[in-house]
């Protein structure tokens, strides 16, 4: 009877997952700003603190090169909630680096890893850009293991408002397929879709243990635009120090 109940529970969550994917795949996928970003996993560890630097470099033959830097400090509040604040700077071409925005985010782990057919979490973000423009978003985080392959989906709904932008509701889709080769080397493929952008490309990532409960996580990837409006190449990097 217990086996049957577990099977029914697994089937139920599988159906919810497929249902939500169907809904989001039917929505028009749109978003302003940099569509390529970090892909979030739906897990939180208590007692975790991290410092993080993310970089985005967009290169296009028809545009100035665009560079974006996100410096973050994060801390868990419990075994299910993790918060992080960011300072975001950017520059175009040979311009000087300028503060672009401030961001706060809260991640909520909803299910225990491995309990159901997929693991679930939610991410809430609030961003204030220079010039009194605001952006609030929520994203559904879904992850599933297939042996050494791990797939992650981030489905975001974004609301923008402010003096210089039209109030609008947008959406964004980010997918990652990762192969767990070894702790120091995990190759992956990521796909992003948003307003005026669709891109796909390879990444490599890994982690290094630096001592008791201290880790350095890194990733490096190149995302290639696959439609006419997208930057030809977006190089993304991330360095996280957990302690």
């Amino acid at each position, binding site marked *: 009877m217990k086996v049957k109940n577990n099977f029914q529970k697994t089937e139920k969550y599988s159906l919810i997952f497929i249902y939500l994917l169907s809904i989001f795949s039917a929505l028009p996928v749109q978003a302003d700003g940099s569509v390529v970003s970090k892909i979030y996993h739906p*897990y939180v560890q208590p007692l975790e603190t991290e410092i993080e630097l993310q970089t985005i470099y967009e290169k296009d033959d028809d545009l100035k090169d665009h560079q974006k830097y996100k410096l973050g400090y994060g801390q868990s509040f419990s075994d299910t909630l993790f918060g992080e604040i960011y300072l975001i700077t950017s520059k175009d071409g040979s311009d000087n680096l300028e503060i672009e925005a401030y961001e706060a985010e809260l991640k909520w782990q909803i299910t225990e890893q491995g309990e159901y057919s997929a693991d679930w979490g939610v991410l809430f973000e609030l961003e204030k850009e220079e010039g009194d423009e605001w952006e609030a978003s929520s994203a559904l985080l879904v992850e599933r*293991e297939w042996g050494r392959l791990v797939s992650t989906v981030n489905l975001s709904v974004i609301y923008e408002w402010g003096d210089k932008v039209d109030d609008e509701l947008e959406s964004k889709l980010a997918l990652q397929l990762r192969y*767990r080769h070894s702790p120091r080397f995990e190759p992956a493929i990521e796909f992003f879709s948003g307003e005026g952008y669709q891109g796909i490309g390879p990444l490599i990532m890994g982690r290094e243990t630096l001592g*008791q409960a201290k880790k350095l996580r890194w990733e490096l990837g190149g995302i290639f635009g696959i439609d006419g409006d997208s930057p030809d190449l977006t190089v993304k990097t991330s360095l996280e120090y957990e302690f």
Partner: protein
Amino acid sequence: MVEINIKQHLFEPSEITIPANTKIKLRIHNLDATPEEFESWELNREKVIMGNSTGTLFIGPLPPGIYPFFGEFNPKTAQGKVIVE
């Protein structure tokens, strides 16, 4: 369900055997006053268990093999393995 204790920074038992291709609920009772993190890259699991409390993990279904784990806060003493057969 399988149960493991953490006592004086050691896993007890330090080896558990589970059936292949079966999901297992693993309850870890941390009997020490200090927190410990169950960690295993091979099992793809990390879980902090606060002092004097219990944490639950789900592992598998897994193919036969040996999957080591350790306590990240006391890696020299807190070590163990999951044997899947």
